[in-house]
């Protein structure tokens, strides 16, 4: 009798819990930031690798547009020639580095031409200077920005991220942000002077003016003759991919190692299962 009651009671409770977990909590829907749709990236998923040409284009956008305000203090010129990245030639990297003046107290005049081992020079000497030039806002450093930003999914869906190894929240966010500007803010939203309305920026008032517009960066002709569209969407895609590489330069090597490790583990576990079964067959 007691058993039956307890079973019914717990059954009802379990049902209640299951129902409660399924609808999205108000927490997520309470945010006024619209949900960001996941983009398709060549480096997404388990099998993803960087598209070398896309990284080169993304670097061009970074160099010509972003780098005038944003630093990337952990990026060295030599990284641009390393395998798994944009893979410029060493000659290209040396020539590129030489275009920049690097502050060096040890040389006459306090500055010298850059070499491949130098880090990417910051556009401003310090935070105060950066803020003064940007209406009080601090343009964040780009070294790991692709991993410092992400998107959120409502309750049941984020569980899928563990199965799909979703790690592209940063590029998805940046792509959305770069295209998320609105010239006239929606009714009832006050944007202070010197700020811009952006759908995806927390609080919507962003200090960065819309950085990309169609045709702003000249990609030239691609090596194989096909031309890449020179649109803001394409620039946003390319620079987001590039910044993912800046944040995770060993992504390709890491995944490659992962396949070897996984194969080894599955085989070894399979063998150990057979060993165990054989061993235990006459244990009882």
């Amino acid at each position, binding site marked *: 009798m007691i058993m039956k009651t307890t079973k019914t009671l717990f059954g009802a409770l379990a049902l209640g819990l299951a129902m409660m977990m399924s609808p999205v909590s108000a*927490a997520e829907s309470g945010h006024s930031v619209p949900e960001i749709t996941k983009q398709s990236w060549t480096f997404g998923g388990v099998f993803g690798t960087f598209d070398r040409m896309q990284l080169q284009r993304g670097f061009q956008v970074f160099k010509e547009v972003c780098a005038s305000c944003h630093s990337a203090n952990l990026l060295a010129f030599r990284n641009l020639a390393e395998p798994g990245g944009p893979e410029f030639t060493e000659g290209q990297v040396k020539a590129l580095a030489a275009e920049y003046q690097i502050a060096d107290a040890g040389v006459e005049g306090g500055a010298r031409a850059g070499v491949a081992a130098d880090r990417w020079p910051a556009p401003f000497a310090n935070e105060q200077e950066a803020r003064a030039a940007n209406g009080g806002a601090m343009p964040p450093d780009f070294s790991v920005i692709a991993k410092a930003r992400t998107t959120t999914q409502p309750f049941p869906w984020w569980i899928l991220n563990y199965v799909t190894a979703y790690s592209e929240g940063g590029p998805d966010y940046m792509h959305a942000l770069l295209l998320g500007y609105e010239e006239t803010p929606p009714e009832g939203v006050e944007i202070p002077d010197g700020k811009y309305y952006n759908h995806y920026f927390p609080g919507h008032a962003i200090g960065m003016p819309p950085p990309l517009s169609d045709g702003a960066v000249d990609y030239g002709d691609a090596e194989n003759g096909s031309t890449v569209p020179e649109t803001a969407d394409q620039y946003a895609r390319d620079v987001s991919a590039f910044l993912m590489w800046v944040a995770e330069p060993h992504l390709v090597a890491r995944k490659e190692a992962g396949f070897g490790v996984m194969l080894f583990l599955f085989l070894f576990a399979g063998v150990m299962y057979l060993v165990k079964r054989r061993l235990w067959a006459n244990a009882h």
Partner: protein
Amino acid sequence: MASHDSSYVPGSAVEKWLDERLPVIRWSKTHLLDFPTPKNLNYWWTFGGILAVMLVVQIITGIILAMHYTPNVAMAFDSVEHIRRDVNGGRIIQAVHAVGASMFFFAVYVHIFRGLFFGSYKAPREILWILGVLIFVLMMATAFMGYVLPWGQMSFWAATVITNIFAAIPVVGTPVLELLRGGFAVDNATLNRFFSLHYLLPFVIAAVVVLHIWALHVPGNNNPTGVDVKSSRDTLPFHPYFTMKDLFAILVFMIPFAWFVFFAPDLLGHPDNYVMANSQVTPAHIVPEWYFLPFYAILRAIDFNILFIDSKLGGVIFFAGSILVLFFVPWLDTSKVRSGTFRPMFKWFYALFVVNFVLLAYLGASPADANVLGLSVADFSKVCTAYYFLYFFVVLPVLGRIETPKPLPASISESVLGQPAAAE
């Protein structure tokens, strides 16, 4: 220490010479090879071995990371990034250590909940259980301090929020807080002492693990029936039967571990920790790592004053109590039957306890002002916190008195032979 006679016969003159002076080989044979182990242990019992491996993985990767890490507020963040970028294999070593912490906690929760279901804490294994809870507490302290070391935003704010808990303790609170932080705020002194202690505590854990295994080897393993070992027919030698079975389980456990390390090393972490610590900018939503969430939910659930105890101290009391209560479980559970398999009512309360614990974790991750099915997170947390404590202080003591357990098998071998399907 030995609960059974040694069958070791020195095979050579050197071994005999050694055996008379330091009988390590005899000890190893008794405890690592021949140790009689109930033959009906299921795969839940492999998590002990998995945990031992995880501790070794964490210590080895941790020692390598410490060779390249700089515990200084100006350099710590970049030095971790330096490990990921410039140290050979650094991206993987760092990921193994960070993901390893999560896997370690996953395994320890399985291990604890296995003990709670099969009554592994009951006589004569109380000390074994208490040492286990002590290891869990040490793990929490170690993981918390380790999380501070990369000096990201979440590191800094977790350190601030968690050390602040101690300020609620009457009289000694503020001095303890300042001792923990090495000053009035979380700063370089905090980072340095956390690094020092984060390096120390794993070895303390290793020492307590030795005691834990010692305490295991006196009464021997519990088993899924909870019935004592009655004869040698009930047991098999640890090696090769359980060494090989554990090795298989360890390899299976390594598969999701490797999945995260190689394909999504940051998925279990928080993006805010890729922003360097800044005491002037508070993150919008401070959350601890997932393995602390149930206890964090309990801490937050007490948002009301209880008589003369204000809500802050109340939260700390419940938070500490939720862990300390585990030390007393052997005496709170009055049932003589160990295994939950033979306890028809206990099973359901236990299942609810597991669901409740997962719910607490979910609530711990939700913003305090959110709603979960029409109930605010604050109220929901109170209900779940109440059940957490009711389970220990009411369910376990009362069930033992009112419940009629199912008949127990006469011996382990009878239960194994009676159910060939379960004879895995």
